[in-house]
């Protein structure tokens, strides 16, 4: 069994890494400091941490002001709040002026569980990726989230990194390559490609094994952690070499990660494609595993989608 760790731990460690490397890094919290793991930075660099109280819009624009005087601010709250409540601030102040503001979206996806729909970020990828200048990263585990956090801190411009609360399998290690904007093939295959981000990368690997055993299908699994800017080359190559695509995300299918992949597939190499994720509904309360299955975000849904896509393949 692989080690289990919440990806938010990677975010907290990444903030501390950045804090040690660069004096300019500051962190802002809106009363969710420990649940975003921003408290790890706060404990180490109390002079560079600011609470704004429960005020996400204000926090985002304070971050904008800090960036304008040379700081590298990280805004920390739940994905549903920074992408939802503060979207206008992110759009009009941060992205329009291409400010160097970083957004950490905690509790991404349905797996946050019993708190229910109000606290589950199911639309954040769609909301963030449509904004000009914005970089969007959804890393596959805690180790990769740490690398992603450091990477967005080291680039210039607005960036959003999404992570979750629940422990999930650690499927990468320090040696796994990570470059912003560059997809990684985690398993090679020739019949079909499963392109996934976040928690669904692990599920995609499980699905690929099932397809191999039960269907004798060779599935390629691509970890597309950077939703934007998207790795067009890797997607086009997967489409043309394998002839069918399944995109998998712990997020609304409409307008999200799969849509981003489809935009490339249709332009570069149209092939049959299927989408795995949350199908146009709100979440609800429940235990994380139950909810993931209830909402279509587990390996078995990827297997079904793959079989459908393969049927359509010429």
């Amino acid at each position, binding site marked *: 069994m692989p080690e289990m760790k919440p990806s938010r731990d990677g975010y907290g460690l990444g903030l501390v890494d950045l804090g040690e490397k660069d004096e300019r890094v*500051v962190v802002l919290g809106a009363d969710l400091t420990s649940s975003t793991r921003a408290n790890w930075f706060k404990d180490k660099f109390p*002079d*560079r941490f*600011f609470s*704004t*109280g429960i*005020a996400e*819009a*204000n926090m*985002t*624009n*304070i*971050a*904008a*002001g*800090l*960036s*304008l*005087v*040379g*700081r590298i*601010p990280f805004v920390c709250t739940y994905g549903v709040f920074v992408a939802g409540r503060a979207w*206008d*601030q992110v759009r*009009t*102040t941060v992205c*329009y*002026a*291409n400010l160097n503001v970083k957004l950490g979206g905690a509790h991404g996806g349905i797996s946050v569980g019993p708190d229910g729909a109000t606290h589950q970020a199911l639309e954040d990828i769609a909301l963030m990726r449509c904004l000009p200048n914005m970089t969007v990263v959804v890393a596959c585990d805690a180790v990769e989230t740490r690398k992603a956090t450091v990477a967005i801190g080291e680039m210039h411009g607005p960036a959003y990194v999404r992570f979750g609360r629940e422990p999930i399998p650690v499927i990468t290690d320090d040696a796994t390559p990570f470059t912003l904007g560059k997809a990684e093939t985690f398993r090679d295959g020739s019949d079909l490609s499963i392109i996934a981000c976040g928690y669904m990368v692990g599920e995609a690997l499980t699905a690929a094994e099932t397809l191999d055993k039960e269907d004798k299908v060779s599935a390629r699994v691509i970890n597309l952690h950077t939703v934007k800017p998207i790795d067009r080359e890797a997607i086009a190559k997967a489409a043309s070499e394998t002839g069918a695509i399944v995109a998998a995300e712990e997020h609304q299918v409409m307008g999200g990660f799969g849509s981003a992949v489809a935009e490339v597939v249709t332009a570069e190499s149209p092939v049959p494609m299927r989408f795995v994720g949350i199908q146009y509904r709100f979440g609800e309360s429940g235990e994380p595993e139950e909810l993931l299955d209830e909402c279509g975000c587990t390996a078995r849904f990827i297997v079904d989608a793959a079989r459908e896509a393969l049927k359509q393949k010429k």
Partner: protein
Amino acid sequence: MRKAKQKPDVAELNDLCRTIRKDILISLNAAKSGHSGGSLSSVEVMVALYFYKLRHDPQNHQWEGRDRFVLSKGHVCPALYTVMAHAGYLPTDELTSLRKLGSRLQGHPHMLKLPGLETSSGSLGQGLSIAVGMALGAKMDNKDFRVYCFMGDGETDEGQIWEAAMSAAHYDLDNLCGIVDRNRLQIDGDTEKVMRLEPYCEKWASFGWNVIECDGHNLEELMAALDQAECNCGAPTAIIAHTVKGKGISFMENQAEWHGIPPDDEQLALALKELDTKPTKEQLERADG
């Protein structure tokens, strides 16, 4: 310590305000759209800032030690562009490119287009939070630049303004000065009918701010208020500048409908004539003599 600036000749600045009003109306007329009323009510505040209070250098607009000016009420950028042009940031000829395709003078300010703008703005309610971030950054770095944020009174209907007000007081940002253009009109009409703001000064005070009220068209009062704001220690200062929307043009004054429209050719001619008939410094001196 920041050195006090020498007070400029107020009569000269009043003449400048009249010229600026003319240039604003000419640019709005050329654009065939834009915000007349609030631009005209903002003139003296921005003149007092750019020609007296702000430490800034139009030749070196990125100078780190400069004071920061955040125009939160972005729709009155015709006034800001015109004041900046007269301060030397851009040629006055360029003002008639307002709102035209490819222009640096966007309908609402865009910092990536026009050097010298500190922020982009337009979606109301956001500027004070940005100013809080800048002032917080200055404190962290022990820099003595000051941050000024200019808001509309109607704009302060936005809840984010009060989030920002709370945080500025919480962080003791005495290097921050908010200025409200209290012209008492917003698009839908009287601010007190759209969403009651009074008791307005008390609201700012209760959020932990020093409050100064002044006549927002009286340059001496504005300069004194800005000086006083700089002396207030331990808390941010709000200057409530009482103004008249459409100030200076008889048929625009206190008319909510002039919020978001430009003068047509005929109205421009009338407005320019009105501004011309007001005595200049030279005329006043001649009269005295």
